[in-house]
Structures are given as C-alpha cells and as structure tokens.
C-alpha cells in the first residue's frame, strides 16, 4: 500500500505562467508533512489541486490508492480530505459554534439534521475546546481575530473526521504560546492516525513538528526530507531561507490563479 496521498507529476499553468511544475510528493498516515517555499512558489495551488478546487493541467492526485484527479470537491471531502484556507473561508454570518455545526450537518448528511441536537452540541463543544477557541463559541465568525478564525477552520475540518488534513498557513495570527499549543495539537492529531500536510511560514513550528518536509520553488520540488536534512540543503538555503524572514507579501501567483 502506498502513501495516503500521492501527488504525481502535477502541472498547473495559468495562461503563460506555470504555477506548479511537475510536483511530486506524498503525505503518510500518522505523519506531519510540511510544504514550504517562498511566496508564489505554488503551495496554495497544490492544495487547490489536491482538494479539487483547481484542475491540474496535467498529472494526477492519488488518494488511498485511487486516482481522484477527476473527483469533484465535495466527493474528495466526503472521502476524508479536509482543509483550511490561507484566505479565510469561515462562514462569517454564523457563530463560531454554528460554523462547526454546519460541518457536522454536512458530514452527517440529511439524517443528521433530525438527530437530537444535544449530542451534537456536546461534540462541538469538545471540539472547540480541543482547538482552544471555546470562549469564542457564540461570537460571529467574522468578528473574531484572524488566529481564532484559522483555528475555527481547523475545528470545522476536524468535525468531518478527515484522514488527510491540509492546513494552509494555520499558525499566522497566533502568538507564541498559542503556536506551541497548536503544535502539540497537530502532533496529537497525527498520533491518532491522520495525515497532515501543512503550508507554513513559521520555520520554528515547521522544524519542530514535521516528520517530512518538501520545499517548493517556482512550482518545483527542489528538496525533500527530514527537517534536519532540508535545513542543511544548499538549494533550499539559496532559494528560500536566505530571505524568508523579510518576505511578507501576498502569495500573488498562486492566489491570482486560484481566483481567476
């Protein structure tokens, strides 16, 4: 049996721009895999390809040993691919609790809509507590701080019991203590058997929690390996770590592509 997720020679072109160029990487059950690279490297586009929001120009996505490249977004979600977004996609008009409840409802299907709400409420509260945002439960999702909204997206994804969890810059907006707690949560989730694939700019977090790291630059994987191996890879240092500290601009190429 292969890895839970295999990204196989994926190419994504937007007009003349190649956002992802023959990317190959995997994510294993029970492991946290980091996907890092400078802004515009194509990380979010990779996520969109895996979740079905972006059709690849060529290449395949294999999940649980099946080619899911042509599956629609919702079908992949139903089969256990969950994600969070770099640009938040929380349901702004609903409360934090109702955001998670919607995920519950969708996951459970129409039958869950008539289930006694008491048990669901309990499960939701446990989940909110687990990601550490229980105190915001009754706030509108568009009024909570960015970091909280990201954790809310995580809680929402977890409500669907994902086997593969894609996290797009989950720690931005969190302070140091919160980030540490978040790192522990990720390790717990992985220990429970989930495969976690994470795009992240916080190198300390990435180095601390990831089992494996893939480095993207100009849409290509330029290095893969353990944190220690990637840290000392000269290609990575040249392409990324040198100016990673100062670069805070938006992920233009990948975002534009995703939106247009």
């Amino acid at each position, binding site marked *: 049996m292969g890895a839970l997720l295999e990204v196989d020679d994926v190419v994504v072109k937007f007009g003349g721009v190649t956002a992802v160029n023959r990317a190959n990487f995997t994510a294993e059950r029970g492991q946290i895999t980091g996907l890092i690279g400078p802004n515009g490297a194509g990380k979010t586009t990779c996520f*969109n390809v895996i*979740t*079905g*929001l*972006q*059709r690849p120009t060529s290449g395949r996505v294999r999940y649980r040993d099946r080619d899911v490249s042509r599956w*629609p*977004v*919702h*079908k992949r*979600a*139903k089969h256990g*691919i*969950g*994600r969070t*977004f770099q*640009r*938040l*996609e*929380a*349901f*702004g*008009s*609903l409360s934090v609790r*109702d*955001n998670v*409840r*919607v*995920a519950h*409802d*969708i*996951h459970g299907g129409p039958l*869950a*809509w008539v289930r006694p709400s008491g048990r669901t409420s309990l499960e939701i509260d446990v989940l909110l507590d687990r990601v550490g945002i229980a*105190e*915001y439960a009754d*706030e*509108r*999702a*568009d*009024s*909570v*701080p*960015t*970091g*909280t*909204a990201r954790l809310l*997206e995580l809680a*929402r*994804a977890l409500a*669907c019991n994902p086997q593969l969890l894609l996290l797009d810059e989950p720690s931005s*907006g969190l*302070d140091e203590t919160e980030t540490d707690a978040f790192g522990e949560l990720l390790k717990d989730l992985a220990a429970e058997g989930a495969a976690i694939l994470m795009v992240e700019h916080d190198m300390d977090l990435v180095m601390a929690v990831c089992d494996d790291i893939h480095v993207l630059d100009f849409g290509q994987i330029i290095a893969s390996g353990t944190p220690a191996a990637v840290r000392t890879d000269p290609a990575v240092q040249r392409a990324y770590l040198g100016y990673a500290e100062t670069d805070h601009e*938006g992920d*233009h190429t990948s*975002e*534009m592509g*995703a*939106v*247009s």
Partner: protein
Amino acid sequence: MSSLFAFTLLGLFTGAAYAIMASGLVLTYTTTRVFNIAHGAFGMVLAFTFWDFTQRQGLPTVVSLILVLGVVAPAIGWFIQRFVTRGLGEGPVSVALVVTVGLLVGLIGLAQQIWKPQPRVLLPFYPETGWQLGDTYITAHQVITIVCSIIVALGLYLLLNRTRIGTAMRASVDNPDLLKLFGGRPDTVAALAWAIGMSLAALGGILLTPVVGLDYFSLTLLVINAYAAAMLGRLKSLPLTFAGAMGLGVLESWAVAYLPTDGFWSTIRPVIPALFLFAIVVIMPQAQLRIGQVKGIIAAPVPSMTRAAGSGGVLLAFAFVLISLVSRSDVLLIGVAATYAMVMLSLVLLTGYGGHVSLAQFTFAGVGALAYAKLDEPNLFGLAMAGLIAAGVGALVALPVLRLTGLYLALSTLAFAVLMDKMIFQAEYAFKFNGVLATERLSILGVRIGSDRSYVWFMVLSFVLMGLFLLWLRRGALGRLLIAMRDSPSGCGTLGLDLRWFRVGLFSLSAGMAGLAGGLFAGLRGTVGAADFLYFQSLLVLLLAVVFGVTSVTGAMLGGTALMLLPVWQSSAPSLAGLLFAVLGFGAVLLGRDPNGIANHLFKLGRLGTGRLLPQWEQQFRLRLDGLLKPGRPAPAHSIDRVDEAVTEPMTGPMNQGVS
C-alpha cells in the same frame, strides 16, 4: 438553395446588430464584473432619444447619430459607472443583479413617462436605397449594419491590443487591485468601458429598431439576445461573441423561413434567443468554485418561533378585522397582496437566505396557477400538486445551469420567464393565446371556501403558515447550511456539500412556494390567463422584495402590499404611471445594496422605541470594564481590547483578507 443563401444573409445582418450590442455587454462585464441586465433597456432609451432628436426635434440624422453615440450614451455610461455600479463587481452577484434590474425597470418607466405610448416609426437608414444580389434584395440599412459591426470589431481589437488604456482594460479583467498597484487607474478604465458599452448599446438599439420596432419592451429584451451571443464566448471572448451573435441571427432567420407560420411553431421565433441560450448553457463546462468572495453579511434578526407565531396571530386578527370592514373589491386586493407576499417569501428563501436571484418567480406562480386551473374540484391535495409541479419546473430550470454559478442561473431564469410568457403560457394546452381559464375556489375537507372574505382570510393564513415554515427552516440545519453556502461556497464544498444538487433543491423549493401562491391566486381570481404572469411582473416582485427587505417575513409582507398598491396608484394617476416605475426602479438602485431593506430599518426603529438599545449599551460598557480590570484575559471580539490583536496582525481585519 438560393433561398437558403438569402435567409442566411438576412440572418447575418440581424446578427451583426446583435454582435454590436453583445460586444458592449461583454466589454462592461469583463472590465467591471457587473453584468448589466439593463443593457437592452439603455439601448431602448437611447433609440428613443435618437427618435426624439431626428423626428421630434428635426435634427439631421448624422447630427443626431453623433449626439447620441458620441455624447449622450458615453455620458450616461460614465455616470452610471461612477454613481451606480461602481464597486458592485466586488460584492455578491445578487446585489449587482438587483441593482441592474432596478435600472431596467426604472428606464422602462422613464421612457414611458417621457415618450408616452403612441405609434412611432424609426425608419431605416436610406430607406429608398438597396441592391439586388442574385434573387435577394439587400437594403442600405443592412449594409450599414454589417459595416458598423466590422468597424466595432476592428475598433475594439485595436483599442484592446494596440493602446495603453486597452492594455489596462485587459489587465483590469484579471486583477483591478494589481492594476492599481502598478499605477493603472481601474476607475478610469471602468468608466471608459461603460461609456463605450453604452454607445454600443445605443448603436445596436438604433440599428435594430426597424427590425423589432420602437417599443419599450422588445428593445429591452434584446439583452437576452446579447447575453445568449456572449455566452458562446463565456462572457469573455469578443470573437466568439461575434460568432454567437451571427449564429443567433441566422437561426432566427431560418426559423422565419422554414418553420410553419401557424400553430405552435409560430410561437417559437420570439423565444429562439432563450432556446439558444439554454442550449449553450447546457454544453458549458463545470465552473470552478472561487475562493475569497463573499463574507459575512449582517441580516435582519430571526425571531424566535414563539414570537413569530405571536406576530402571525396578530396579523391574522388584524386581517380578519380589515377584511370584514372594507368593500368587496378591496377584499380582493388584499388577496392579491397576500399572493405577492407569498411569492416574495419564496424569494426570502432563495435570495435572502440562499443568495441566489431568480428573475422568474412570478412565472413559477403562473405554473402553479395553471396546474390549479386544470383541477376540477380543487382541494388541499390539488393545491399541493400545483406547488409540486411548480417545484418540478423550478428544478428543470436549475438543472441545465447545475454546473454553473449564480449569475448564469439568474440570467437563465430571465430567459425562462420570457420563454414561458411568450410560448408556453399562450399555447393551446395552457391558457391559450389571449385566453383565460376558469378556476374554482378551494375546498377543504369537502367544504368549499365560497365567500371572498373567508377565502382571502385563508390566503392570509397561508402566508402566515408559509412564513412560519420559512422561519422554522431558517432556524434549523437547512437554514444554517443556506447561510454557510452564501458566505463561502468553497468552504461548504471542501466540507463535503454537493453544492450543485443543494442549489437545485433550494431553487425547486422556492419555485414550489411561488407555485402554491399562484394556485391560491388562481382560486381567488376565478379566471386566470397568460397576461397575469408576464415576465416583467417577476422583475417587479424581485425589486419590491429587495426594497422592503428580502431577508425577513415582514419585508415580504410589506413588499407584497406595495406591489398590490402599485397598479392602484398607477390607475388613479395614469399620467404618472411611468414615473412610478421609474421611482421604484431607481429606488431599488439606491436600496439594492442592502438586502435587509426597509423592514430592517423598521425593526431598528422598533427596538429604539422599546428602549432595547439601552441595555445593549450597558452590556458593552460592562464588557469594556471587565477587559480593563482583567488585562490577562483574552478580549471578547467586540470590545475595545481588540487593540491587542491589531498589534499582532497589522492592517488586516479577521475576515476581509480576501479583498485586501
């Protein structure tokens, strides 16, 4: 064979005029993301203006043409972009649609007010001149049309590909924010696009007037032709738009030539654009979900079920008193208001909660009425069947656009409304041309509701029950899903919701509600005909629903009452009939950005009146105090302690990153 050539040629001439109009539509849509449903209406007003200049003021044709195309049209385009549609492209599609529907209705009203109904003729250019080509006679007007379309095509090509502003226009299509960063001026680009688009609407309108007549409605409906043509190029590609327009023109011409001139087939010609449109929509590929669009919306408050039931009871009691006091004709008017209010409730579900726009809601009521009229002894079961049939038809309309997004669905409903209005409702198996069907009053458990007063009260009861059903829905899982889908379709999709079928279900439920209203309406009237369910009525229903608040049951009630009063006012002051439409349309333009409408302001006023704002302030004050006393405690979101957050996340609000 030669006649095939002749009719193809004729079709190409009409197609050329469609192409001119459609290219204007594409230009404004691609540069500003606002689909101008009023594009044809602007063409209509400008064609009337041209008639005014040439026939009434007696200006020479060339001078009038230069004035209309070079001065009036661009000025209007600039004005509309600056003051009406600016910024609409970044908001929800439903708002942009409502605003431009408001423009459409307002322009028709304005035209009726300025140019009172009377036969008018706008002659073709050089009416005496023409040439014989084989056995086909080609008029100078046709040659001018095709030359104009070639000039427009070349002009647009040169503008977009060979000039700086054209490059900026193309850049603006991709990303206006980025364009601004690189020193471009998206506002100038947008204004120019609208100015040119309006001139093209005018030119198309003027060229087509000799074909379709100088008429408020037929010229307005040309937007469907333009839209159908533009859809071939997915509203983006100008060459494909031209191809689509030519194809449409030829199809129409062939229909005239080869279809029987009597019976069912004769009704097909006016609906060819709509059929053409459906055909294209069906073969269009799946639309991708977009990321980073609409965010949280402040909606009107949802009352508790007890409170809602209480209000419903009060309304029923009030209606009972009112119905027993007023005259018989006024009783019937209350029934009409209840019908409109119920149709608007179906829009509360679809538009207010779901964020989708339907321009055919009254047509669904017509389907319900038709089904009801076919019943021999209508009872509750029959009424339910009428609703189910309308729901089925609603699903059929949504199915072809299953794979597409909001705008296409809404525009398809307009095409559907026209299709029903001009073809199906007038067919032999329906109301027949200019015909009516007799209807019976509803019977409940074998008891016929004979008297007008009890029947109308029953209609009010139906409205109340429907409203309660809607609120129950809104408070439950389905309501949450609807709001979630409106806020973030991508979020729902990645959680496993199949948006396509969910949308069809929603659309079908909403159509079913409208169908029920239509059935009850048929029972009220005693006779119903195609004239009761004109497509234009659906636009009015949408506008008044939004103006009075499409997010609340109260809004639907007020909107229904207003729509009932509209013709009453119009008949009491016939000279101002058009003006009322204009006020309504342009009012919707002003109010369309807030779907909570007038009802929500009333709610606020009500809260102010009962002094409920005071405790709220008190609560906020307490929260702030708590925050100050316990600095270590994380801040509640709406307290002033959010300053802490601002330090860690400079310049970014929690949810507005998508537009940053």
